[in-house]
């Protein structure tokens, strides 16, 4: 363990330990290798695994501090129940009893209101196995309402993939240019950003486009401050620029694109004026960007997770294909958090009815969620039972928080108290990632086996165990056969089944993957669908008109844009229970530009009130130029809204008058 590292570091521990476990950190989608030292069943020290091909010994603050969550006194450790949301929780004697109760309730609700009245939400906090099993269970139950942010379509067509995948981050040093769009990876994926800095030191340019002046932007050679949610429009503008200048690879377009002429023509109609207004960059600046990109190949394009939910996302795939920015080391399109290959969770049972949270505004799922939102507003509650993992109620199920009529059952599966747990009837304590073995997929498309470090906390179970228990009570053991002889969940056979069901990772055995973890050479899943010979892609055309994705609310009364964003590297809700993060980031801090603060007479640290048409929030001002004058930002709240900010002793009318005058 004591060999020299890339940075002349000497890893190891001075703490007494009986053994160590090499595994994969699951705090973010970089999936770094880590070494955990154990004594008396508990973790005594942690550092990065030097032998890991992706992280090569690096590990960020989250990867070190997650240990604090395992032993947190705030952890939920027993199943609990209450008759209504006003009553206090009563602890239940065991999981089996709690599962009996949920199964009975679900059966009753299905009989009375139909399966469609049952909703399942899978937060990324409760990992992939929960979502896969939930999808399968929902399919058997007959409800289409299962929502999750993972990407496991049954085919590749659900995702705009280019013919070649991007270089993994440890190959970025071969790149001459990294273009990051609305991707603050210095904050969210620090180890991957370490590789970007490595490339920069070797002469690569870092270009960053974002609305806030982020940590990532602070290291950029070219910083582009853009309007919120306009990242994909930059892609369209770049495409139009190279088409106008004929600087694209004509052969690739002819051989790879379906109907290239029609596609090319769509860009003629695209208006520079509209793009300028939407992005906030002049055509000259786009030209400058385009020139810089074309002078500096190979190019890596990194796009933020949020762009995936916005219109014209496919332009990045189209752009790298048309420009030939792929297929070599240090090039390609690197979509953040699009980590999961196509899987097939409903294999062997009826057609899949479940939906995933959409990558495309026009898709039925997005429309379905919007319909639900509207129905909830009007009081037409379609949900009689809601099963949630993680904190869906602060995320895509937020509209369920305002239900006028209480559903009969809200069950929460999670590790820590949160808004969803506070609104639930039943609570199931979940094991943390370090407490179970499983397969994990990374941003680099690496498939790795993560060995559990410690035994699950008292009373805690994995997502697989939760669904196996429910399936058994519905008589669906045959569809959920991953049980060992001793009755416990068999994670290995489950994940082998998952691998077997994927159209593109067939033939890859768990044995190989577990073995490859030990020889420092990850297995990767490929973008290529072997069944398709011609490899043609449907290029993303320019839209008829550019419409800003940022919601335009009542700007007259709510003149500032609000962005929800983490200020420091942390793991969402779970990070609240790590003592160090509590102190590092004041959760109620709200970033406000010094000029805006001056206009409103707000001092640094002063109590302020933020209100949108839908919510109000108290906070403390953090005066910083990281945000432009028309924007405020906080790790809490609901992103993408327009808000009014006022001092505690100011009336909203006073604040509004000041802001209107100031922003003119």
């Amino acid at each position, binding site marked *: 363990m*004591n060999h020299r590292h*890339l*940075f*002349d*570091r*000497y*890893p*190891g*521990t*001075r703490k007494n330990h009986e053994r160590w476990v090499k595994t994969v950190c699951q705090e973010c989608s970089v999936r770094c290798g880590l070494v955990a030292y154990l004594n008396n069943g508990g973790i005594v*020290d*942690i*550092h*990065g695994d030097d032998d890991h091909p992706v992280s090569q010994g*690096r*590990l*960020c*603050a989250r990867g*070190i*501090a997650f*240990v604090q969550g395992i032993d947190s006194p705030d952890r939920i450790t027993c199943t609990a129940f209450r008759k209504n949301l006003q009553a206090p929780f009563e602890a239940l004697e065991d999981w089996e009893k709690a599962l009996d109760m949920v199964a009975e309730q679900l059966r009753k609700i299905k009989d009375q209101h139909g399966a469609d009245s049952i909703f399942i939400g899978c937060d990324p906090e409760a990992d992939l196995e929960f979502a896969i099993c939930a999808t399968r269970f929902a399919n058997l139950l007959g409800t289409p309402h299962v929502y999750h942010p993972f990407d496991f379509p049954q085919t590749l067509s659900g995702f705009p993939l280019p013919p070649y995948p991007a270089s993994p981050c440890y190959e970025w040093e071969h790149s001459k240019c990294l273009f990051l769009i609305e991707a603050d990876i*210095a*904050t969210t994926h*620090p*180890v991957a*950003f*370490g590789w970007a*800095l*490595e490339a920069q*030191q*070797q*002469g690569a340019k870092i270009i960053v486009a974002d609305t806030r*002046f982020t*940590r*990532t*932007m*602070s*290291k950029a050679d070219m*910083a582009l401050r853009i309007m919120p949610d306009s990242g994909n429009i930059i892609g369209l503008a770049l495409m139009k620029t190279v088409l106008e200048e004929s600087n694209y690879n004509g052969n690739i377009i002819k051989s790879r694109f379906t109907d290239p002429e029609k596609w090319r023509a769509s860009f003629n109609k695209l208006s520079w004026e509209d793009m300028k207004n939407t992005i906030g960059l002049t055509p000259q600046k786009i030209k400058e960007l385009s020139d810089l990109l074309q002078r500096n190949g190979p190019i890596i394009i990194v796009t933020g997770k949020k762009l995936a939910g916005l219109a014209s996302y496919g332009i990045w795939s189209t752009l790298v294909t048309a420009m030939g920015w792929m297929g070599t080391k240090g090039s390609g399109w690197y979509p953040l958090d699009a980590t999961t290959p196509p899987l097939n969770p409903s294999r062997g049972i009826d057609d899949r009815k479940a939906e995933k949270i959409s990558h495309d505004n026009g898709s039925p799922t997005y429309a379905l969620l919007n319909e639900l939102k509207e129905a909830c507003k009007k009081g037409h509650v379609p949900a009689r039972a809601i099963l949630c993992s993680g904190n869906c109620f602060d995320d895509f199920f937020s509209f369920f928080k305002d239900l006028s009529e209480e559903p009969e059952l809200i069950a929460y599966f999670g590790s820590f108290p949160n808004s969803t747990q506070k609104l639930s009837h039943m609570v199931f304590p979940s094991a943390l990632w370090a407490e179970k073995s499983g397969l994990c997929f990374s941003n680099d498309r690496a498939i790795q086996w993560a060995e559990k470090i410690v035994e699950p906390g008292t009373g805690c179970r994995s997502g697989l165990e939760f669904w196996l228990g429910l399936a058994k009570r519905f008589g669906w053991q045959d569809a959920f056969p991953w049980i060992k002889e001793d009755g416990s969940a068999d994670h290995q056979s489950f994940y082998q089944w998952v691998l077997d069901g994927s159209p593109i990772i067939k033939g890859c055995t768990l044995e190989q993957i577990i073995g490859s973890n030990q020889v420092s050479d990850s297995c990767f899943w490929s973008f290529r669908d072997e069944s398709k010979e011609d490899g043609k892609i449907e290029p993303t055309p320019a839209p008829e008109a550019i419409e800003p994705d940022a919601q335009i609310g009542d700007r007259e009364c709510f003149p500032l844009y609000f962005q929800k964003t983490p200020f*420091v*590297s942390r793991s969402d809700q779970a990070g609240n229970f790590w*003592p*160090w993060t*509590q*102190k*590092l980031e004041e959760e109620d801090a709200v970033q406000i530009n010094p000029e805006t603060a001056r206009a409103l007479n707000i001092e640094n640290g002063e109590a302020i009130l933020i209100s949108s048409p839908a919510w109000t929030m108290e906070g403390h001002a953090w005066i*910083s*130029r*990281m945000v432009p004058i028309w924007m405020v930002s906080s790790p809490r709240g609901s992103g993408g809204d327009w808000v009014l900010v006022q001092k505690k002793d100011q009336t909203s009318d006073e604040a509004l008058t000041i802001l209107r005058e100031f922003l003119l």
Partner: protein
Amino acid sequence: MNQMHPSIKTEHYLWVEPSRCIGCFSCEVACKMEHELPAGPRPIRVIQVGPLEHGDELTMKYQPTACLHCNSPACVEACPTGAMQKREDGLVFPDTDLCIGCQHCAIACPFGIPQLHPGTGKITKCDGCVDRVDIGLSPACVLACPTGALSFLTPIMKAQRARERFAKEIRHSGAVR
């Protein structure tokens, strides 16, 4: 056989490269975990400077700050019990058995390094991870840094690294044919 002259310094120093620091706080967290510190004292601390306006542009920097292990440490001079010590290899650290929590060192230090541990009532500061260094391991903060902004090197190693960097810069600037 290469034999080192006895006057050549073989001690390691914490070398900070702020240009590589991204303010991820890995060093702070690793330090706390290593020394089992509660929220409060931060023996190594990353300070965000900016964004500041430079014409139309903004700049923002991160500066990791830790004990400088001074040649003539004011904290050692000020300590009435001899708890604060400087080792032969230069590391300055408090012996917590001798510390009475008077905080004279905290007052004396021009950089505000020594801090009170709220749990024990004694002083805590960067001790250069003496216990790790003595068995040949890197200090916890250095090991944790994901971007290589922190290194623990001898002057010879540091000079070697600087020369390698410079050579790479020349090569990538295209000046070498």
